């Protein structure tokens, strides 16, 4: 280790590692999806010759953006009171609520889609209180699904902002005469505005890019990713066209939100003391908290876990023993499960190896202005629809290196999708550490690698584990890109196939398949959580 420490102080080695991280980022993550589209640029002509196809494509793109904007606004509006409740409540029960808010994270999105379909559409569930199907597959169910899987992300981001934020600002406002609602509106939201914008962007990006779960609840409805999925084999030009529009418009919307968001003035000047005072105290607060909890339980939590119910039903039947004995179609299922988890583990390790140096470059601005540019570029894979990313990657790698094994394509696709999550969370953790700690360590004789081992890593390991957990869950639940990039079947892909009735399976089997996936994901996450519990929080 001492040798490595010494080696790390050599500028050639140090900058060699950083340079390798940058090169790998461009070569594996950023350029392939973009070039994949450019390679097939010429095929786009076909869509302009087919008026119906063009209209269908544009309609799908419009659907994507309308739903993404609508859902992101709703997510932030519903997520803020929940985050407030978690961050500000002194109740001992709040820890349980805090943990429950994370539950939808562990449900793979394809399972989540199926779960919502069962909950809202199946006549034997809530629908029986209304009519045959309360919400049939279509635009509304897609919006509801996107709301459900983005909600925990939004809540987590805003809770983080509220916990990091100095409570003294609120106390100062209160001592100056502002009731709690005025304080939140004029002071708190003004200060955490960047986090509100970040939450909006994340919800928007997830909605634009989600494919697998959307397919389960879309019915005849088409948004961008579903259009790509439906046409990727038959109309390559249409796929390239829609991918391009989604990427370009997403980038433009992101840029606009970032620029305009910073200039956006929240209404901090006006004050309505009488009204806001009335809305600040017990009755109004109780009503607000009740609505918040109702939304969380009825729209997010219970529908997310609903797919697990048929699994319980299946246990006493022969479906369960059939599943364990791996006869058709379960042989496929277990193989896909092994592929999913080993893929998740591989992608997590690769992310740590190539994402960590990038996080340091971004956080510590190792390459000056270029670091700021990298900081922006790192986010791009988040906004590319996962199915579009899969299609582009397949086009790029198959054109460039036709012999490349499918499993590598799969790894590259998952790496591109998960990379921003890891780099973002690590960069934020490193930024939070005072540079003076690193400098102090250097002045005491530590070489750069030793500084990382003894100072940076112990202080950021919780974030590193959290980032790794995010990468792992995202990879295990990814469906759209997986289906687009290869014929290999991960567990969510198999489940989508079952639900879409590509092979004949009973609802009980689908429920059991979803149940196994949720259970195993939950056990792995619980184990990781137990390992990292209490570590690295300083």
């Amino acid at each position, binding site marked *: 280790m001492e040798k490595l420490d010494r080696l790390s102080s050599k500028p050639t080695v140090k900058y060699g590692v950083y340079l390798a991280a940058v090169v790998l980022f461009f070569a594996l993550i950023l350029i392939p999806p973009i070039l994949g589209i450019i390679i097939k640029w010429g095929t786009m002509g076909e869509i302009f010759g087919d008026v119906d196809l063009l209209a269908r494509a544009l309609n799908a793109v419009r659907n994507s953006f309308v739903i993404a904007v609508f859902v992101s606004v709703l997510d932030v509006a519903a997520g803020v009171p929940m985050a407030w409740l978690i961050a500000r409540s002194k109740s001992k029960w709040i820890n349980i609520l805090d943990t429950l808010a994370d539950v939808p994270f562990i449900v793979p999105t394809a399972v989540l889609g199926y779960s919502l379909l069962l909950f809202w559409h199946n006549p034997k569930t809530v629908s029986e209180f209304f009519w045959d199907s309360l919400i049939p597959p279509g635009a509304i169910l897609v919006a509801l699904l996107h709301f459900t899987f983005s909600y925990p992300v939004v809540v987590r981001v805003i809770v983080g902002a509220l916990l990091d934020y*100095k409570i003294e600002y609120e106390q100062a406002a209160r001592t100056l005469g502002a009731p709690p609602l005025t304080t939140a509106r004029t*002071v708190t939201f003004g200060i955490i505005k960047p986090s509100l914008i970040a939450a909006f962007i994340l919800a928007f990006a997830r909605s634009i890019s989600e494919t697998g779960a959307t397919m389960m609840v879309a019915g005849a409805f088409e948004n961008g990713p579903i259009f790509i999925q439906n046409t990727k084999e038959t109309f390559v030009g249409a796929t390239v066209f829609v991918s391009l529009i989604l990427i370009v418009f997403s980038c433009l919307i992101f840029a606009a939100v970032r620029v305009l968001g910073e200039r956006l003035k929240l209404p901090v000047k006006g004050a309505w003391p009488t009204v806001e005072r009335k809305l600040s105290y017990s009755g109004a607060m109780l009503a607000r908290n009740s609505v918040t909890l109702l939304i969380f339980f009825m729209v997010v939590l219970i529908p997310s876990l609903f797919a697990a119910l048929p699994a319980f039903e299946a246990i006493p039947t022969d479906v369960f023993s059939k599943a364990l004995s791996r006869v058709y179609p379960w042989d496929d299922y277990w193989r896909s499960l092994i592929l999913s988890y080993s893929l998740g583990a591989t992608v997590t390790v690769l992310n740590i190896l190539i994402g960590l140096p990038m996080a340091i470059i971004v956080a510590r601005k190792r390459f000056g202005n270029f670091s700021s540019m990298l900081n922006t570029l790192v986010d791009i894979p988040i906004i590319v629809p996962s199915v579009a990313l899969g299609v582009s990657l397949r086009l790029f790698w198959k054109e460039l290196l036709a012999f490349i094994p499918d499993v590598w394509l799969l790894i590259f696709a998952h790496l591109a999708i998960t990379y921003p999550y890891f780099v973002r969370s690590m960069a934020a953790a490193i930024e939070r550490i005072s540079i003076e700690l690193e400098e102090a360590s250097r002045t005491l004789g530590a070489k750069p690698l030793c500084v990382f081992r003894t100072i940076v890593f112990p202080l950021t390991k919780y974030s590193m584990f959290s980032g790794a957990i995010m990468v792992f869950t995202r990879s295990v639940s990814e469906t759209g890109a997986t289906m687009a990039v290869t014929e290999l079947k991960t567990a969510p892909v198999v489940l989508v196939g079952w639900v879409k009735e590509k092979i004949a399976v009973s609802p009980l089997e689908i429920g059991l398949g979803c149940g196994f996936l949720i259970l195993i994901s939950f056990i792995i996450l619980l184990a990781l959580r137990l390992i990292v519990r209490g570590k690295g929080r300083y």
Partner: protein
Amino acid sequence: MPDVRLVNVTKRFGKIVAVDRVNLHIKDKEYFSILGPSGCGKTTLLRLIAGLIAPDEGEIYIGDRLVNDVPPEDRDIGFVFQTFALFPHMNAWENVTYGPRVKGFDMKKAERIGHEVLEMVRLHERLDAFPHELSGGMMQRVAVARALAAGAKLLLLDEPLGHLDAKVRNELRYEIRRMVKDLELTAIHVTHDQSEAMAISDRIAVMKKGKVLQVGTPQELYMNPKSIFVANFIGGANFLEGFIAEATDKMAIVELRGGVKVQAVNKGLGKGERVVLAVRPEVFTIKREKSRGENSIFGVVERVAFEGTNLRYEVRLENQDLIVVVMPSLSCEWFSIGEKITVSFQPENAHLFAYPETGLREELAVE
């Protein structure tokens, strides 16, 4: 007009008793300081008065109103935070006029108040500046202006000068007192700096481990400390251990370690009692005399430090106790290291205390 009364106020955080049955009466228009070492509960006490935390027991009155269940926004107070807590997304003007706006004052009135207070703190020319564009002293002024603009008659200051450098701190403390007195406010100022508290306060409460040990004017606390801790915390002192060799109602002869005998004013202690004699560094005189005079002890100069206004001597006494003596540098004789000298003090300038049950070190501990 706001006087503040605390009756048996207690606040616990888990097993820690941060404020322990505190009784205080802060008079209207008084500049009152709460002084004590870190962790003594002084900030907790101020936050209880502000309503930022609620007491577990006891009653808090502002004026005649019991405010235990009144939220901070309805207590009619101004609060200056140690870190200033200026809203980073608002400029100086918006920060200062925040109170009048959220209290529903009409805009003309809010603006008039804003101009007045910014004029008062001499920051009118920086009203467009955001907090990060201001120096520490300026931020502190804006924080005070913001608290004043809310129109409260009770100003609470939580170590408001703690984040400033010494020179700015010395200037601003008098400025704050002047404003408080000009506006006829009641001010409660929390600090751990005894010189700051002495310089600006009408009265001071000294706290230790959640309890108020003594309340009095700066002179009373300095001249007549009621405990070893107060004698040490206000002004500083040398503590010499010994026994009462002889005692009358007014005077006592104390036999220090090594058999050295000195006289001190007696405060009801009896013959044979173990005692601690507190003598402030500045009440000693040093001479080169070789003969023992009244209340004098032989010693050797071990260290000398020139502090500008004063000379600070560390003297090893004949009984091996080490004391500190401070003399005005311009008007005293200078002594060098190793020089044999005699130190003496007037009996009425020494404070005699019974030896603390918990030991002297524990009694003096500030943490």
